[in-house]
């Protein structure tokens, strides 16, 4: 049986992890490789690295970092942040990344998804969608949630799937950072609406929230950042808890 995946997300700025301040048993929580290795040892199923560097100049070091990560960890990982062309993606996959995540640049130019799927296959293209509920509609936002667009979550997710995304990473901006649980209703709707896997993101606060995302939201995977980084939930404990809830993980 295919297991549900637990995915810690690491924000990278200028080659260093940010937010990772209270992780146990780690020498340098700012070192992406060391933090990633620690998560792999704990039983994380995948990792996501999001490069939030301010400039393209600083992003150029990303491929070198990806190579360093791939050398040291033995689980799959996704790299995202500022990717806007086939030329951006090739070096990251060659360096050992398994998938790339695309967000604002796909909203700006949806054909990018077709181009990437043709060049590299749908299995390595994750369409990240940040959305917020406005007047009863889930409105897609870009640029870290700063800019609203005319796209709506469900139709954009479907279009993304048709263009060649292999997976949807849905972040509810209304839930992100609240620790009040994932956005269950849109997750379930995405599940029913799509034939590709969906990763739930935004709102994880306690272990029960993961059960809700998997059972009620039907998510294939759940992503979180701070609760893992700050040691509020340890992945082995979370997996034990989920097993007791009848949810199979690795």
């Amino acid at each position: 049986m295919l297991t549900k995946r637990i995915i810690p997300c690491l924000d990278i700025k200028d080659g260093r992890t940010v937010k990772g301040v209270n992780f146990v048993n780690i020498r340098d929580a700012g070192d992406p490789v060391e933090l990633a290795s620690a998560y792999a040892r704990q039983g994380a199923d995948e990792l996501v690295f999001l490069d939030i560097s301010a400039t393209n100049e600083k992003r150029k070091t990303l491929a070198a970092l990806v190579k360093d990560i791939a050398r040291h960890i033995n689980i799959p990982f996704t790299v995202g942040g500022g990717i806007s062309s086939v030329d951006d993606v090739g070096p990251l996959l060659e360096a050992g990344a398994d998938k790339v995540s695309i967000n604002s640049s796909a909203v700006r130019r949806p054909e990018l998804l077709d181009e990437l799927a043709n060049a590299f296959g749908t299995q390595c293209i994750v369409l990240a969608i940040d959305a917020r509920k406005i007047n009863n509609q889930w409105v897609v936002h870009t640029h870290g949630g700063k800019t609203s667009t005319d796209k709506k979550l469900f139709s954009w997710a479907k279009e993304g799937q048709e263009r060649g995304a292999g997976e949807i990473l849905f972040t509810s901006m209304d839930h992100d950072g609240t620790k009040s649980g994932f956005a269950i209703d849109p997750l379930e709707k995405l599940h029913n609406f799509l034939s590709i896997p969906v990763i739930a993101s935004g709102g994880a606060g306690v272990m029960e929230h993961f059960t809700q995302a998997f059972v009620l939201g039907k998510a294939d995977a759940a992503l979180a950042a701070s609760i893992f980084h700050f040691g509020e939930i340890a992945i082995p404990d979370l997996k034990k808890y989920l097993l007791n809830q009848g949810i199979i993980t690795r």
Partner: protein
Amino acid sequence: MNISVIRYNAGNIQSVSFALERLGVNFTITDDPETIRKSDKVLFPGVGEASSTMKYLRERKLDQLIRELKQPVFGICLGMQLLCRHSEENNTECLGIFDEEVKRFQAGPQFKVPHMGWNQLALSNGWLDPALDNQNVYFVHSYYVPVNPHTSAITEYIVPFSAALKKDNFYAVQFHPEKSAEAGERVLKSFLNL
């Protein structure tokens, strides 16, 4: 021991190389026929699309080379599918070591395609370390090899399918040992220790 990793346009050569490095194994990434022929073991990795990959292999006559290898050969993911006779992925004639048709998963309400994530192995015949039985390994694929007389591990997703194969000197897995944590290392060792 002298190990060759076949150099071609596969997407996971870097990851497979790193996994071998982590095991402390010496290897050469090469498309030189003599080097490949002379090596003790050959790894045939693979991530990508079947028809363009077969075209690439044919243009470089690597298809014939692989068929003629006598030492243990290990196909990974697309590498395993290409060792079969034919793939539904863009109607592609493959290498024909395993006389099997590679089929596409049919998505359904409960089943997403690609099959992506960690799933369990049920070992059925013996080249994989017995400790791997019921262990989770990492899969990413939309096409599968049906269960057949050469199946050495079965995984279930939509249908039971071949997670691993063996015939003569050809060994193959559908999942990614290079990304399957400790279980994946055991799989690589199972092949390297043959």
